[in-house]
């Protein structure tokens, strides 16, 4: 029986981690990390999990500890945010390149400078190309559900890649919502026993991790990594199907909301999708065919499936909660544009940058964007392809 609770996103993720009961966790639990690890270390101290908890001297060391523990043959997880993730950056590539199935909760928070730890996707977007799987979550329920599924996906024998579960800082991480916890046994059965692959602690079969791979082989390893990424979608969908059996909740590679017959649409990640759906309802009541697409599996990005879901719309606005400095578009826009590239008669696209550093995304912003899309759908003309919204002149 599911248990209905009122918890923050952080509590929900920490509870999922408690239910999974990993072998090892290494973390640096201070700001900008959130209280996920603080709550989890309480579970450790209270004997509610068997996890070996390593408190490191920095996030770089925290991820290094996770890499060592995972190579040793344990089920490993950690959590971080913002600058913490930035400090882990070089280790992220070592985790993925060594094919270590570490699960990490990433509470999306802004990067310094200027110093800010509010909801913003710059941290996750900065790590989008590091070879990890990324699952993005709209609310506490999705963050909890994605955390549990992430273990199954990352540890799948065809995949063995680290996975990041992203949720919005403060808006989801620190706000209390109603959600449902799955029974401990159901979670335990769903993630199953951890199967080690080439563990360092198997002294009968000695192995080395992290060898020097020069010009003669590096490209072959990169190509193999890219190939494994291409298998992730199927594993994500299989895990979702199994997860539905224990939770009753459906998950895909992305969520579509009133998109089937839509003429205009929004593409938006995480918590702002909730606000947008409400506004889409009000436009539908006015007879305007508006819809929404919310990516869930952001890495690897399901280009083909998303391209097909959007190709018949007339106008689409991609909203980015991070900018890619240098005159190009926001990171989500770039992928959406790429997914529509094969469709010559696809929708007209525009890109809005919103909500940086935790700036509120209000229904009025969604209304403004949708009204602009109505005009673009009629005329086929875009005034500005990329624009900041909710910013003072």
């Amino acid at each position: 029986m599911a248990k209905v609770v009122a918890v923050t996103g952080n509590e929900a993720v920490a509870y999922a981690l408690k239910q999974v009961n990993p072998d090892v966790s290494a973390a640096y639990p201070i700001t900008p990390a959130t209280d996920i690890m603080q709550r989890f270390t309480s579970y450790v101290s209270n004997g509610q999990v068997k996890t070996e908890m390593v408190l490191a001297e920095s996030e770089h060391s925290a991820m290094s500890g996770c890499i060592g523990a995972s190579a040793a043959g344990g089920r490993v997880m950690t959590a971080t945010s913002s600058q913490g993730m930035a400090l882990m950056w070089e280790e992220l590539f070592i985790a993925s390149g060594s094919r270590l199935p570490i699960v990490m909760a990433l509470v999306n928070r802004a990067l310094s400078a200027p110093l800010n730890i509010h909801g913003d996707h710059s941290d996750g977007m900065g790590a989008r190309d590091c070879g990890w799987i990324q699952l993005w979550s709209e609310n506490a329920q999705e963050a909890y559900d994605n955390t549990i599924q992430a273990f199954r996906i990352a540890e799948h024998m065809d995949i063995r890649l680290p996975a990041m579960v992203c949720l919005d800082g403060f808006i989801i991480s620190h706000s209390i919502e109603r959600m449902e916890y799955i029974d401990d046994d159901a979670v335990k059965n769903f993630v199953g026993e951890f199967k080690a692959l080439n563990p360092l602690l198997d002294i009968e079969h000695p192995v080395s991790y992290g060898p020097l791979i020069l010009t003669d082989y590096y490209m072959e390893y990169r190509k193999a990594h890219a190939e494994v990424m291409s298998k992730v979608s199927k594993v994500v969908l299989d895990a979702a199907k199994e997860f539905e059996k224990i939770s009753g909740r459906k998950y895909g590679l992305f969520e579509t909301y009133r998109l089937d017959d839509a003429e205009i649409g929004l593409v938006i990640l995480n918590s702002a999708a909730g606000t947008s759906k409400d506004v889409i309802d009000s436009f539908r009541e006015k007879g305007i065919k508006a819809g929404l697409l919310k990516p869930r599996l952001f890495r690897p990005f399901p280009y083909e499936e998303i391209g097909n879901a959007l190709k018949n719309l007339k106008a689409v606005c991609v909203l980015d909660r991070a900018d890619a400095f240098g005159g190009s578009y926001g990171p989500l826009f770039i992928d959406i544009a790429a997914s529509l590239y094969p469709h010559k008669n696809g929708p007209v696209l525009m890109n809005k940058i919103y909500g940086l550093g935790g700036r509120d995304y209000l229904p009025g912003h969604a209304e403004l964007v949708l009204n602009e899309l109505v005009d673009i759908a009629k005329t086929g003309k875009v005034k500005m392809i990329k624009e900041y919204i909710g910013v003072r002149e």
Partner: protein
Amino acid sequence: MKLKGWKDVNPGAVCTEAGSALKFKTGSWRAYRPKWVEENCIQCLFCWAYCPDMAVFVKDGKMTGFNYDYCKGCGICALECPGKKGNKAIVMEEEGK
């Protein structure tokens, strides 16, 4: 030796064969080569202990020369060598001279 294609490389570049570093000869990286001056050698084996690779040959507890297949010419052995009466038993010489 025929190189493997991307489908045949081991996941995560994990080496599952013990001692396979023997197959990877790194001596060609060397710019300076250590030269053993036997008359100054007191057989302290510091060179063997300090060598980051396994480039010092030792037989019956005695240093007998260098394995140039693996010596990268780092010079640590020459630096640590106490020699005899101020004369080093290991000196670094430029390759190709």
